[in-house]
Structures are given as structure tokens and as C-alpha cells.
């Protein structure tokens, strides 16, 4: 394959992957934060204890996390179709990616928030902070380094899963590697794709680490 062709292919793959992973990351961040915070709040001794809510939420998270991604991909096809009107292509891949990543990130959010010492939360309550203020100004704020580290791990995982989404015609770099590298024995394309993916992961991790470093003050 000629370089201009390869370049165009790669560029197309990069754009598709960036779109899939980018949108999934934003949606996952929102969903994961929401569920993670809820898991902490509704836990026993939490700020808004609610046993049943906590139990159901925990179960849903665990079930989703224990499903192999490929199975999840297939299992939610009807849901995907209902939501985006199609089951192939990058936009369709965003649905299973997000649904797979939210519980993963939610647990990381939960863990990070639990690291905030109860002492500090008690101090805020003693100062007359409302629940909303405690979540925003104490829990999420104090947990920021952990949250960013967790999001970094999640983005890297999403990159990996997005390659898998290629299997069902999701597009992106993974799709490229499979279609050309694997099915047509174009080793050059395969190697180039892998290199691009490595660069992606390195980039995400470095940026994540940098932000964590800037946010940590201990």
C-alpha cells in the first residue's frame, strides 16, 4: 500500500477512534460520576443512606462489569438500535462503549471519594454545609486527583474496547487493523495502527498524570 493511501486510512481511523472514545469518555465521565457519587451517598453511614438503592445500584454495576465486552456489545444491540437508529458504525459503537465503561469508572469514582477522610466531611457538616455543597466542594473537589487518575485508566480502557468495537463494524483504528492487517495480511497497516494506538495511550496517560500532579497537594 502506498504511503498516501495508508496515511488517509490512518487519518480516517484516528478520527473515528477519537470520536468514539471522545464521546464515550464524556458520557462515561458524567454517568460514572453520578453513579459513583450515588454509591457513596447511599451507603450505610453515608450522607443519604438508602440500603435498597445502594444494593440495586451495586448489583447493576457488578453485573455489567462481569459481562465480557463482546457479549455486552451483542446483548444491547436492540437498545443501541432504539437509541441511535443503527447498530453499525462509530456512533453506534459509542453506546456499548459507554455502557461498558460507566460501571468501571463508577467504581473508581466510588473508591476515590471514599479516600476523602470522614473527618473532613464531618468538619463540613459541622460548618453547616448542605449535602450539595459537601458533594461539590468537599467530596469531588478533594477526590479530584483520584478522579482524574481513574478517568485516565478509563480512557485507556475505552481505547482498547474501541478496537474491539471494530469487530462489529464499529470503525476506527481497531477496525482498520482487523480489516487490513488481519484479513488482508497487510502487515504494514497493522504495525502502523498499533503504533498509533500506542502513541494514543502514551499521550492519554501522560496528560492524565500531568493533571493529577498539578492537582495533588499532598
Amino acid at each position, binding site marked *: 500500500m502506498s504511503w498516501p493511501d495508508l496515511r488517509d486510512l490512518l487519518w480516517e481511523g484516528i478520527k473515528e477512534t477519537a470520536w468514539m472514545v471522545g464521546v464515550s469518555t464524556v458520557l462515561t465521565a458524567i454517568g460514572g460520576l453520578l453513579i459513583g457519587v450515588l454509591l457513596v451517598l447511599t451507603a450505610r453511614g453515608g450522607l443519604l443512606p438508602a440500603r435498597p438503592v445502594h444494593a440495586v445500584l451495586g448489583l447493576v454495576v457488578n453485573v455489567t462489569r462481569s459481562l465480557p465486552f463482546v457479549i455486552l456489545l451483542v446483548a444491547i444491540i436492540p437498545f443501541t438500535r432504539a437509541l441511535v437508529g443503527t447498530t453499525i458504525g462509530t456512533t453506534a459503537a459509542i453506546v456499548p462503549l459507554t455502557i461498558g465503561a460507566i460501571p468501571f469508572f463508577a467504581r473508581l469514582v466510588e473508591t476515590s471519594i471514599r479516600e476523602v*477522610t470522614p*473527618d*473532613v466531611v*464531618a*468538619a*463540613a*457538616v*459541622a*460548618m*453547616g*454545609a*448542605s449535602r450539595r*455543597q459537601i458533594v461539590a*466542594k*468537599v467530596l469531588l*473537589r*478533594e477526590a*479530584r486527583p483520584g478522579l482524574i487518575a481513574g478517568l485516565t485508566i478509563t480512557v485507556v480502557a475505552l481505547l482498547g474496547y474501541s478496537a474491539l468495537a471494530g469487530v462489529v463494524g464499529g470503525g476506527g483504528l481497531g477496525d482498520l487493523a482487523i480489516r487490513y492487517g488481519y484479513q488482508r495480511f497487510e502487515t504494514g497497516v497493522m504495525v502502523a495502527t498499533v503504533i498509533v494506538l500506542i502513541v494514543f495511550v502514551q499521550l492519554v496517560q501522560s496528560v492524565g498524570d500531568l493533571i493529577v500532579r498539578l*492537582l495533588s*497537594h*499532598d
Partner: protein
Amino acid sequence: MIEINGVRKTYRSRRRTVVAVDDVNLTVGEGEIFGVVGRSGAGKSTLLRCANLLERPDAGTVTVDGVELTALGGRRLRDARHRIGMVHQHFALLSSRTVAGNVAFPMELTGVPRPERRARIAELLELVGLGDRADAYPAQLSGGQKQRVGIARALAVRPRVLLSDEATSALDPDTTASILELLRDLNKELGLTILLITHEMGVVKSICHSAAVMREGRFTESGEIPELLRRPGSELARGLFPLSAADAGPGETVLDVTVSGGGADEPLLAEVSRRFDLDLRILGGGVETLAATRAGRLRIAVPGAEITGPLDYLRSRGALVEVAS
């Protein structure tokens, strides 16, 4: 200023029930520093957490600055809490905020406008002696400095009451002394009422006007310090002035003499010695200036078993005399 009436708090777990606070009554007057001492597990922290309803008592009422907290909930309780400062053993500062940010925190909660916040932060940091560390993060401060930030933060919204749970327990003796001095100054200058928990008698000695001893959830004694010192068998007096066991010589009677107020500075023992022609031996003890009074407690050995004369004399001079052996 702080009125705790019949407060009880029970913790239940599957295995056991702990009555952490058991029917405690406590009144802290305006401008008073009240100390609660007791062993680990006595229920001191639980009691303090009941004072701002961090723990809601199972029974009894808590009234602070004229507001009955136990009758409130939600927004009204939060509003009341804005006027109660609290200082914590492990400082409980926000690690993600600078010193200035930590002091700003309670003001943000109550919606103090930014320019006003700025001015108040500068004023408070000056007050606690951290004027030059506004931009430092807690991790960059020493324990004593962190506690100063904790105190500045507690004072930010001008509370009239300060609650302190072992504020100096994590600090070395010199730093402890400086923090206590700060609390005493705040009490004098702002008329701040302070309810503090400690397991160090030194804290009670140096700043408390009144104190209570807590054991298994109950107050075993409680009152103003000069009055407690005059109370026979007072545990607090023993704690404030520990007397080492010293054996009496043959035919000697050992007396523990406690004096407080003006009596502490009178040559009482010399008078007894002269008047009854006795050779007294001092076995131990000391005289000190407490926050509330000047007081002393001495263990002395008196020759002979017939001691009614000196005993009555000492008592007539206002001393508390207990026969130790």
C-alpha cells in the same frame, strides 16, 4: 451559652450496645472555657459531637446560644451550625485548598461576598499568626500551623461558641502551649465560649475555668475548678496535682493539703509548724497558677497521731485536708 440536658447517645451494632453518653447535664456560661476530661472511650467525643448535633442524641436537649438545636433539622440546623465553630484533633483541613481557601470555605457556605471574604481571611490569618502562609497548602504546614488554620477557619463566620475535640493531642508540648495561649486570647478578646475535650490535665490547668470528669458516658464530677479543688476526694484535683506515693516515717501521719485562691500564697505550713511546734515534712506536691485560680496541693508528713489541732487549723484557713495514711 451551651446547655446540654439529659443527653443520651447509644450505639447499637448486631453484637453489642454501647451507651456512649449516658444522661449528661452540662452548662457552659458565656465566655467560659469548659474542659471535659476522661479516659479513652469514656464518650467525650460523642458528647462533643452531640453539642452541634453531628450526632443526634437519642434523648435530651441541646441548646446553643439560645437556639435549641435538638428541635431543628435541615436548613434551620445548618444555619445554627454556621454560628458554632469546631476544631478537630487531626485538623480536618481540605488538602486541595490553600490556607486562605480553607479559611474561606465556611464563608463560601454562607455566601459571604468575595471582597469581604478576602479581608476577613487576612484578618484571621494575622490573628493566628499565619499572615505569610496564605498560599501554602496544608501538606506544607507543621501540625501547629495546621491547627492554627483550623482555628482561623472555625472563627471565620464569627461564632460565639467554639467546640474543640483534642485540638492539641497531635502536637508537641511547646506547640500545644502556643495553641492553648491562642485559645485563651480568643476567649479573653472575643469573649468566645469554649467547650473542649482533652485527656491532658495540662490543658485543663492552663486554660479551663470549669471542668468535668467523664467515665463510661457519665460525668462523675463537674464544676468550677476552684470549687472542685475544695471538694473532698475530687478526682480532678488528684489529676491536676498528682501526688507521688510517699511512705510516712514511723509514727507520722500523712496529710494531703489542697489550697486554692489566696490561700495558695499564704505561709500556711509555716504557721502550722510554728503554732503547734511541729516538724512538718513535705513529701510532694506543688503550687501553680491555673487559668481559674492559683492553687496548690501538698502531701505532708506530720509527726504523731494526734493531729486534730493542725487539722482544724488548716481547715479553718480554708484548706482542704485529707488524711492519706
